[in-house]
């Protein structure tokens, strides 16, 4: 009998696959051209098949302390997947369009305004965003309305710190958020075929008590570094108990108001996407069940497990925000 070969070192696939290789494989697949005419369309938004890849966005290392209490210990979605599978229609409707089209997005200078029903309106610069508040790392579950989910280590600070800083008036009841509107940088805002024909700028909103909840995060980084543009650089919202589309990216304004603000997906299809959009296995999307989700983790086809979806995405501590509310009606 021959002796079985034993490698002296063992690697996990994640140790081996370099990010650039990962990206190159995707473009190889695309250039094979069998992804259909649609791939052609989305490609026209990027540099094209034969041009060299544009230089990737450089993420800076950040200092932070880890918050273990509010972090899940479920296995995390690898960095390469978190940063290459994004819904950010400003850069194209395909999941891999943002990583291809957003690399040259300018995040510095940036200006984030906090205004409306506040005593002290403030404007934060790029440096303020990264330095004004101490950063925490929190590993949150992210549940997309499309029934897939990830586990992501965000860096950021609680939104309530920012809002308290601006001193909200007693009359303020809601918080309205707005993404940057810059058609020159965002092809989806220039061309409705690239941006899916939704109305821009993207807007979102929360009730003030939701916004002040300690779980609600303004994130500036992921995996120890500043956010790449496809994940909503330089600053985005993260509301872990709501569907992903509530967590608006590349925010330029936060306005306190006394009226429920309009929200982008609700405006597009009110019967499918509500203002609250709390993760809820009992309320189906009209076109698919929300009772379970596919967790995107490390590994290929056979590692993508379907798991039961939990109410409020498992963040049961937010339930008191919704006592006496019919969540079937206010979905």
């Amino acid at each position, binding site marked *: 009998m021959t002796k079985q070969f034993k490698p002296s070192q063992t690697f996990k*696939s994640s140790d081996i*696959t370099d990010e650039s290789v990962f990206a190159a*494989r*995707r473009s190889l*697949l695309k250039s*094979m051209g*069998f*992804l*259909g*005419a*649609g791939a052609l*369309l*989305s490609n026209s938004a990027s540099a094209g098949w034969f041009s060299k890849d544009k230089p990737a966005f450089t993420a800076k290392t950040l200092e932070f302390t880890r918050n273990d209490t509010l972090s899940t210990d479920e296995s995390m*979605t690898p960095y*390469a*997947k*978190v940063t*290459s*599978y994004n819904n950010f*229609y400003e850069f194209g*409707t395909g*999941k*891999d369009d943002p990583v291809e089209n957003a690399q040259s997005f300018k995040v510095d200078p940036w200006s984030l305004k906090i205004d409306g029903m506040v005593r002290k309106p403030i404007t934060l610069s790029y440096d303020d965003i990264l330095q004004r508040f101490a950063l925490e790392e929190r590993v949150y579950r992210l549940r997309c309305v*499309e029934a*897939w989910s990830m586990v992501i280590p965000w860096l950021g600070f609680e939104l309530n710190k920012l809002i308290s800083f601006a001193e909200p008036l007693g009359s303020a009841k809601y918080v309205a958020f707005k993404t940057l509107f810059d058609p020159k940088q965002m092809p989806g805002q220039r061309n*409705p*075929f690239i*941006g*899916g*024909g*939704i109305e821009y700028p993207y807007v979102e909103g929360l009730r003030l008590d939701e916004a002040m909840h300690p779980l609600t995060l303004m994130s500036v980084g992921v995996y120890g570094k500043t956010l790449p543009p496809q994940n909503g650089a330089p600053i985005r919202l993260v509301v872990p108990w709501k569907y992903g589309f509530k967590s608006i990216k590349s925010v330029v304004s936060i306005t306190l108001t006394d009226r429920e603000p309009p929200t982008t997906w609700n405006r*597009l*299809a009110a019967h499918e996407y509500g203002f609250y959009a709390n993760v809820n296995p009992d309320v*189906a999307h009209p*076109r*698919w*069940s929300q*009772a*379970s989700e*596919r967790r*995107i983790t*490390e*590994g*290929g*086809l*056979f*590692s*993508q*497990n*379907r798991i039961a979806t939990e109410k409020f995405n498992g963040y049961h501590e937010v339930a008191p925000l919704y006592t006496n509310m019919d969540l079937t009606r206010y979905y």
Partner: protein
Amino acid sequence: MTLLSKPLKLSLWQLRGVKVALHGVILAWLLVTFYAGINDNLGADPVKALIHFTGIGALNLLLLTLLISPAARYLPAPALMRLRRMLGVYVFVYAFVHLLTYISFELQFDWSLVVSEIIKRPYITVGMAALLLLLALTMTSPNRVRQQLGKRWQSLHNTVYIALLLALLHFSWSRKTGLQEPLIYWGLALIILLPRLQNFRTRRGKRKN
């Protein structure tokens, strides 16, 4: 008006060569893509990538199949007709693998969910109807069955146009917004269907006279 001065003819061996090449490309593409998915070389979400690949692949093949008879007539290249059945069967293969991928990797054999999704979600119901039509067409494609069916064979196989429209509806409906690639496919389908609609009208007109 024709594009070629002489009708394009293929010898038996040429025809066999073309068929082998087509088998190779269409099958290998499917296998290579699944292999990439198994090894996590298909982007962040291999399941969604494979569902899209097989679905759009089936649509592309269906459009290609429907281009065969106009190409055979107008090039003219009657030999192309010998390739149509094979392409048509591959439409079913891709569509069937599309459904299998959805059941096994997306829903992971949660059979009660499979059944309820097919019944409750109109876009999946419509896709399922298209697949059943393709199944009927595939099962009636052997020569022997074709002869047994006689004239009814052609009427049955005309439902391929219904399958195309159902598949396009399924595709458009699955998207979150309207202005996306399904529009291009509706355009292509229109280009393929309009001349046939005219043929159909003139033929019906003749029958009446």
